[in-house]
């Protein structure tokens, strides 16, 4: 056997051994210092909201861009709410940016602010080519900073996505240069965010993500306090689950609900559960909730009830409901149907009728809108085609603020972001009323 005659570092046997000792020494030191698995840290927000039941709706965005989609929310230190969504000429367009607006405390209107991320800016920060931006989600980290995670694509469609993160130390006024999270070994392709991130008890961050190249399945990232990925776990496998939402009921118990992307009826939200803080998850099962391959969102109340907002139909996204469960997602009861144009499905309205209907919807959604007809026209641009016009109320994102108030945002006909705010008293009254509930 001949001694290799390459560069010096692979020629000497002793030197190779030294490299082995140094490399693995450093590797084992790092491995033994990694954060142990954390426990869930469910937020305990009691009934601190206003005593009088109330629900109110308004638009967040003002129609500055033709298309808007995929909103998310984070509570600010002063009790205000900041929303994020992506918007541009069309989904996947090069002009799509991550927009933001603030709902200040004590006010009843959203205040738009300049976009927080653009394709060019992200490209400059990441020092790599970026083709388009997508879903943003925000979370307040244990150290008080806001982390904004959003989808970026360098090559191909959404299946080629990766997750990019930027951080703010001043509640969203300024943002650090973006950094990319590496989450898959194959060109870092196919990790997307949508579900609400959450904190573990050790301050690490859980980020529900999903994969949609070759297979479609839910995953859970864990980020340390510097924002580095320290673990990734599959919540499901196969080709039929997307956009997990993790709902922790205690430090060890949680369910994760996932959008059903399969074609096998009945089309239902998929559900997995854990009783050991996510060390192990059950196999996905179809829940009682209908799902038309659309995103959902939810929160857990301090009394263990689970609230979920979703398109509770098997096709289309023209009905959106708030549902509640008292038994950890076993059975569900409709609290309110927030939007419902499902009855028009069989006979899609022509443009004139669509404009009339949508103008009325816009007026009902936000009485302060100066010109509901312009909202209707903007919606028609997105939702009318050769086969008539349709409705879409999708991609809900629900949070509960420290004052007990619930804030929900969702895509309204692909052209606006709508905000619904309600309190615990309203919720309890709705759930206590008879005749308005539909059991699932």
């Amino acid at each position: 056997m001949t001694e290799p005659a390459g560069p010096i570092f692979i020629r000497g046997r002793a030197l190779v051994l030294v490299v082995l000792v140094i490399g693995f020494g450093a590797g084992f030191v790092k491995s033994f210092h990694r954060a142990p698995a954390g426990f869930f840290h469910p937020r305990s927000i009691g009934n601190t909201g206003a005593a009088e039941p109330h629900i109110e709706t308004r638009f967040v965005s003002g129609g500055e861009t033709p298309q808007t989609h995929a909103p998310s929310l984070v509570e600010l230190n002063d009790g205000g709410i900041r929303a994020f969504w992506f918007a541009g000429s069309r989904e996947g367009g090069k002009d799509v940016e991550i927009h933001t607006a603030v709902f200040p405390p004590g006010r009843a209107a959203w205040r738009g602010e300049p976009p927080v991320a653009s394709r060019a800016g992200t490209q400059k920060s990441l020092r790599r080519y970026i083709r388009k931006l997508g879903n943003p989600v925000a979370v307040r980290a244990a150290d008080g900073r806001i982390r904004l995670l959003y989808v970026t694509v360098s090559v191909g469609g959404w299946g080629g996505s990766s997750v990019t993160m930027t951080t703010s130390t001043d509640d969203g006024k300024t943002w650090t240069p973006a950094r990319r999270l590496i989450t898959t070994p194959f060109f870092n392709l196919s990790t997307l965010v949508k579900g609400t991130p959450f904190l573990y008890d050790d301050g690490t961050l859980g980020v529900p993500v999903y994969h949609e190249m070759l297979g479609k399945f839910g995953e859970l990232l864990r980020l340390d306090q510097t924002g580095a990925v320290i673990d990734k776990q599959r919540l499901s496998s196969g080709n039929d689950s997307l956009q997990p939402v993790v709902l922790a009921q205690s430090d060890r118990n949680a369910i994760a609900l996932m959008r059903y992307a399969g074609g096998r009826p009945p089309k239902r939200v998929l559900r997995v559960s854990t009783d050991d803080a996510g060390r192990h998850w059950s196999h996905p099962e179809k829940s009682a909730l209908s799902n038309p391959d659309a995103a959902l969102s939810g929160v857990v109340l301090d009394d263990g009830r689970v609230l979920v907002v979703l398109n509770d139909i098997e096709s289309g996204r023209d009905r959106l409901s708030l549902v509640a469960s008292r038994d950890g997602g076993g059975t569900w009861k409709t609290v309110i149907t927030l939007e419902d144009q499902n009855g028009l499905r069989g006979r899609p309205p022509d443009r004139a009728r669509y404009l009339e209907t949508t103008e009325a919807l816009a007026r009902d959604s936000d009485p302060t809108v100066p010109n509901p007809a312009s909202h209707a026209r903007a919606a028609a641009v997105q939702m009318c085609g050769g086969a008539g016009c349709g409705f879409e109320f999708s991609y809900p994102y629900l949070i509960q603020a420290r004052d007990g108030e619930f804030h929900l945002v969702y895509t309204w006909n692909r052209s606006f972001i709508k905000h619904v705010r309600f309190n615990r008293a309203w919720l309890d009254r709705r759930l206590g009323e008879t005749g308005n509930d539909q059991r699932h």
Partner: protein
Amino acid sequence: MINVTDITGLAGATLALTAPLLLAPPVRRLKRIHIGLLMGATAIVVAAPIGPLPLAAYARGGFGDLSVTTNVLLVIGIYPHLSGRRRVDRREETAICHLVAVTALVFYPLALGFGPFDPYRLGYGSPWFLAGLLALALGAWAGRFHLISTCIALAVLAQAVSWNESTNLWDYLLDPLVSIYAVFMVLSGALRVVAHPGGRDVR
């Protein structure tokens, strides 16, 4: 301010875009000093910002950061042309190509969702995974496959010091480019054996 991982990532992309020059026979016939100057000039063009981003950044946007294995193979591929020294032992190159090819063919389908088990998760600091790699590296060292031992050890070290953007050890061991190269080399070696049974495997 530019991050260290951006510098290492762009350097890897520059290396990957520059090294293929040596595939051109006219370049290989040049004097060593001319090869060095040509590669240096090419590297500057690739790494210098032209428009919003350097060419290396576009490449990095497409294929990501290169693994340590790829970087080592590129360096030992370029090294003889610049130094005049002999190539690494063929046996070593063949062994690492077989190891990379077999690992990639098992690893990537599983990591991309073929079945419920995700081997990529092991790369987030599993001591058992590290122990397995140590055993493999020591076995390779004992068998005098020093290139394998060196690549594994440097990958583990690079991950420990956060050389690349990724925090996952797999990304330091393997990447799709080296996997494609290894599979190609293994298949072309096998075809040569089939075409010339009993013949010497020459390139």
